[in-house]
């Protein structure tokens, strides 16, 4: 068994593009769920809107890359408004059901054969990331950090942009949550009626929160699409949202750095375990399972971990237990 490979892969994932994508997705969720108490189960839809906006703008219509970025952000705002209008006046679980339904609608529409010409059907779209990589300041080659981990120049560029976006998002959230605006959000999470009685327009604040978190989700979608140079509809399934929830709760909801630390630990751990299992199976140390069964085991662990976290440590690593004792009824 190659222990160096196991640990280098784990560390690479902990700081790699998966961690960036899920950190951004979870920062968005943190605005929704952690600070405002909105149960958005459709974060995957915002990522899909972001990723597909760039892909369709560049690959299908041949328009400039930055126009795709602008369209992505604009569409994320529109999606947030569409989700918010019917549900934000209702109880929390309505938003949960509608957002999960919306995420499936987005996925089913982009994978539809009827719209294959625009969205590429189940195969998705490729060949839209050239202008992004043309901006790459890193010369070709392999960049090693320390002795065991390293990325190629393309990944380095994705990671640089990605971590800058993560840092910027965290900074913006930090400033916003310190502001009176952020205090109103937290107050809504604690007691909506009390906030309403103070004359605040709760609906409008919730909507702003949904839009902000959705736009950050679209940023995650940009990085997701660009890091793979491809978009595929089934990557934006509801599992993505639930991974992001696990990341958020692991790190600690309603904490600025919770999602970031959560994403790093989540991916490092997940890849550590699955690479270990794969290596162990290949080396014949474990022979009761096959390599193809490692995938389901990995997802079982995520599910089990999510359950254990919420039962025993709902505040995650950094959170405050009093801040997430939410109750929908």
């Amino acid at each position: 068994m190659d222990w160096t490979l196991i640990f280098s892969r784990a560390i690479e994932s902990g700081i790699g593009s998966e961690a960036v994508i899920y950190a951004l997705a979870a920062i968005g969720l943190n605005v929704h769920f952690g600070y405002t108490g909105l149960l958005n189960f459709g974060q995957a839809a915002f990522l899909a809107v972001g990723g597909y906006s760039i892909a369709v703008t560049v690959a299908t219509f041949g328009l400039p890359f930055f126009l795709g970025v602008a369209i992505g952000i604009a569409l994320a705002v529109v999606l947030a408004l569409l989700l918010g209008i019917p549900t934000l006046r209702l109880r929390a679980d309505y938003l949960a059901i509608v957002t999960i339904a919306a995420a499936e609608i987005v996925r089913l529409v982009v994978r539809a054969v009827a719209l294959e010409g625009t969205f590429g059907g189940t195969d998705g779209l490729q060949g839209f990331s050239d202008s992004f990589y043309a901006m790459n300041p890193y010369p070709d080659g392999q960049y090693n950090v320390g002795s065991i981990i390293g990325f190629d120049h393309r990944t380095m560029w994705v990671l640089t942009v990605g971590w800058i976006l993560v840092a910027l998002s965290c900074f913006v959230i930090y400033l916003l949550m310190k502001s009176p605006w952020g205090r109103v959000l937290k107050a809504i999470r604690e007691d909506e009626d009390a906030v309403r009685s103070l004359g605040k327009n709760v609906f409008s604040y919730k909507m702003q929160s949904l839009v902000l978190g959705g736009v950050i989700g679209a940023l995650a979608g940009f990085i997701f699409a660009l890091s793979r140079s491809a978009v595929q509809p089934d990557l934006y399934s509801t599992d993505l949202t639930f991974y992001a929830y696990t990341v958020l709760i692991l790190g600690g909801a309603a904490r600025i750095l919770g999602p970031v630390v959560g994403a790093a630990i989540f991916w490092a751990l997940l890849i550590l375990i699955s690479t270990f299992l794969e290596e162990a199976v290949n080396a014949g140390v474990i022979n009761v399972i096959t390599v193809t069964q490692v995938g389901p085991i990995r997802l079982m662990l995520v599910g089990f971990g999510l359950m254990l976290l919420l039962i025993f440590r709902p505040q995650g690593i950094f959170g405050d237990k009093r801040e997430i004792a939410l109750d929908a009824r």
Partner: protein
Amino acid sequence: MRRAVIAFTAFLGGLIFLLASGPAMAWAEGEGLKGTIQNQGQPVNGVKISVADEGGAAVGDATTDARGAWEIPVPKAGTYKVTIDQATLPQGTSLRNKDRATLTVQVFEGQNRSVLFPLAASGGQGGTGAAPDTPSATQEFFTRFAQLAFDGLSLGLTIALGAVGLSLIFGTTGLTNFAHGELLTIGAFVAYIFNTTLGLHLLIAAPLAVVVCAALGYGQDRFFWGVLRKRKTGLVSMMIISIGLALFLRNLLLFIFGGEGVPYAQYVAQSGIQIGPIFTTPKNLVAMGIQIVVLVAVGLALIYTRLGKATRAVADNPALAESSGINVDRVVRLVWAVGTAVAALAGILLGTTQNLSYQMGLQILLLMFAGVTLGGLGTAFGALVGSLIVGLFVQVSTLWIPPEMKTVGALVVLILVLLVRPQGILGRRERIG
């Protein structure tokens, strides 16, 4: 609490043990092409498929078996042309896209790639020669409408069986159970184990599985959800816990049974029958009969029996019910047992019309939510009405929109209904805000 977790782990362990006694999975080696030819959910036997490489040289051919499955190994990764022999299709069926009889597909290293040839019923029934006078467009429209409405009713009944449990659990405990789809899947697979591993006829395996699942449902509340309620876990936390549980159970099933669909030993291929404008199979009619009987029984029990009345009382106001002497915990456990049993039955019946897959519950979970929300969260009868409407809508909408988009239509309608009548059809206003 620790005791409860140990108990729950033991429960899951037992489940793993029960499921692990299933068949050992054979994983395909090497590259190949495969597929299943189905017409309206029924496997089609004896269709010839041939594969040629990029240059047009024949690689191999195969004929679909009784399950409608075919498989052709290919020598190496590359691009292949798959052709379906349209002349071997049964009378009355044809390819949905006649010009897509030859598909060019890419096979990657080590991939056993699925190729899909969607079939559709072609115009005339029986298809013997040209009809003397072609039916008018309206006639054809109503024939298709009747067929789709019938299919929709069948789907709606399946959704309703799942949704009744979902709605009752929500009503009595406030939990939006995202793991409810997996209860259907588990029911189907428990019956599968009884059916294939133990070799029992499906007619015996199915009731046994329903009983086992009732016990599982009871246990799930007794040792897991009930304990969490005692700990005063918030409802939102419980909702996310149910997502974790769903993820866990779904992948446990994938781990044990693999990603390939598997059929029951009986009632796989049945020749269809024509009733007026509707084409169906006897098993489908029996399944619908069972579904109607079970739904009516659940409905009557809710209205007339003491426990049914107690259930409605708890759903209405748990605190008031408790103070008037109803044992709320007992009612909730009963609801879990019945809800799980009914969901398992839905899963088994669904499994007679399609291959069992670890995703089958997830695939209709959103439709169940749509039905429950449409009917009014927490009302058993609302769930019934809502589910039937969703089922009908999903199928009938394919008259105008592509079949792959039918779920989209239902979910869009769900969102629109929330705009105009958020409490649903039978819900009451005060529950929503």
